[in-house]
């Protein structure tokens, strides 16, 4: 699984919400090699501060070598990224990590919360491309409000998935937690793939576990390199040892992970 370093021209910059942006980067080598669930490390800003690259899930890929990332402004790095104007280039390393299972058999439920929806779109579209039957598969998406969600929710819908949404303020779909949408659906599912806040993924994992449904989760952790070199991205595994999110993950079977808190 080779990774590439590309100076990727920024082709487009969409403002999804006040603090949520979607960038289209021309990164043909990365795009050609990418699998759903993998991520890229982006260099934000030209100087030495912020110093480290930032990890972002690969959100969409097209046949002409373009890659989208969807992100929320959290701190200095993402703020800098939001300020990059089309025409500039962004230094990208990827694709990194393992990715979600591309199993075509069985009914699938994707559960995304916040920016966790980013990799799920790539997964949803790749499964469709690979010939999976998706019209009985669910996509459950949660966010703070309508604005954050509706554009990407529509895109999932266009792929042919059954899309349900939940928002904190009730401005789109269910008023409440996205995980609450899972209960009626879960018994009919064979697999759940989830990405989002840890607490949300834990609920998914618990519910899936209780229902004896397979569950893959995509973890976030601070990363210095993304390449398996710094060993900084450790999270606890179920046995008390450590998993390295950048190489062994970011996607894990829910059972591998130690769910604390």
């Amino acid at each position, binding site marked *: 699984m080779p990774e590439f370093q590309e100076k990727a021209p920024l082709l487009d910059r969409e403002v999804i919400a006040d603090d949520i942006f979607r960038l289209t980067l021309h990164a043909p080598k990365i795009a050609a090699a990418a699998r759903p669930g993998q991520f890229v490390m982006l260099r934000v800003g030209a100087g*030495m*501060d912020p110093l480290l*690259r930032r990890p972002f899930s690969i959100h969409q890929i097209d046949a002409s070598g373009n890659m989208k990332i969807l992100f929320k402004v959290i701190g200095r790095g993402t703020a800098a990224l939001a300020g990059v104007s089309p025409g500039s280039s962004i230094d990208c390393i990827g694709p990194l990590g393992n990715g979600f299972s591309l199993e075509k058999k069985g009914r699938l439920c994707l559960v995304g919360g916040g920016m966790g929806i980013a990799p799920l779109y790539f997964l949803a579209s790749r499964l469709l491309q690979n010939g999976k039957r998706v019209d009985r598969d669910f996509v459950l998406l949660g966010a703070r409000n309508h604005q954050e969600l509706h554009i990407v929710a529509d895109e999932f819908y266009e792929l042919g998935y059954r899309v349900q949404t939940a928002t904190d303020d009730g401005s789109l779909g269910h008023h409440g937690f996205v995980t609450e949408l899972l209960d009626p659906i879960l018994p009919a599912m064979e697999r759940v793939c989830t990405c989002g806040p840890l607490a949300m993924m834990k609920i998914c994992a618990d519910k899936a576990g209780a229902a004896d449904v397979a569950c893959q989760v995509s973890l976030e952790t601070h990363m210095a390199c993304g*390449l398996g070199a710094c060993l900084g991205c450790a*999270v606890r595994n179920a046995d008390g040892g450590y998993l390295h999110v950048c190489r062994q993950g970011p996607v894990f079977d829910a059972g591998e992970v130690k769910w604390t808190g």
Partner: protein
Amino acid sequence: MDRINGKDIDLRVRLGGLSLRNPVMTASGTFGYAGEFSHLVDLQRLGAVVVKGISLAPRPGNPPPRVVETACGMLNAIGLENVGLEGFLAEKMEFLREINSRVIVNILGDSVREYGLLAEKLTGVKGVDALEVNISCPNVKKGGVAFGTDPAMAAEVTRVVKEGTDLPVIVKLSPNVTDITVMARAVEEAGADAVSLINTLIGMAIDPASRRPRLANIIGGLSGPAIKPVALRMVWQAARAVSIPVIGIGGIATPEDALEFLIAGATAIQVGTANFYQPRSAESIIDGLAAYLKTQGEDSIRSIIGTLQTEGD
């Protein structure tokens, strides 16, 4: 000879018994076991690869969070996670033998005896060109700190490692001391073939919202451009204090950074944190050194080493 427009620019340096095709190495713990970078970096261009610190037994490392970014730097408290000597020999050496670059094994132990055993067991292993003795890692409470800050203990470790091996022995110094020259001289007298410095400065970061340390280990090692001025000062001091070669480490990311250390007296340098954010840093430094020699009208990097001009006004 380095490839740069076919010009005869000589970047070779010698560290005691170890000759390098150029003075640019990758620092321990920042380049994994080299394979991690094989798709991004032309490994055979490197002067040497220093692998992640190896202990006798595998170590799981510290609980997370293990890394946090700081102003122009980062803190790490990896806790010396490593595959252990057997794992290293079984899983990593085969690849390292093939990269056509020098391989330096960084070793660490909880006791003098462990250092000695590691040295013995790595001696004669095909593909291992030298040992770098990490007496300076601040992350493990047991041993690490004391070896690196007490000249007598540092000398003792050096002696035992030297007795256990005929490989060139580089002793890697901690910057968390009052006088780096005391440490450098202590290990020189104990037989070190070279010293490398600096390892990380001990630092800390707190999240005000939770009032918790940002590292589970509370304290960690500070690295990156932020520490370069301190590293350069210590390298300059050490190079004037000892007659064995000095390897400069600390915040090096560009050719200019590397040149600062060479001019201050380092015979070679290591690129650490920069590998994380710019994997091609070492390669661009190699290119930049050759370019600098041209502009300076010199044909050998060795004529740059230790040429700091401090007289006059």
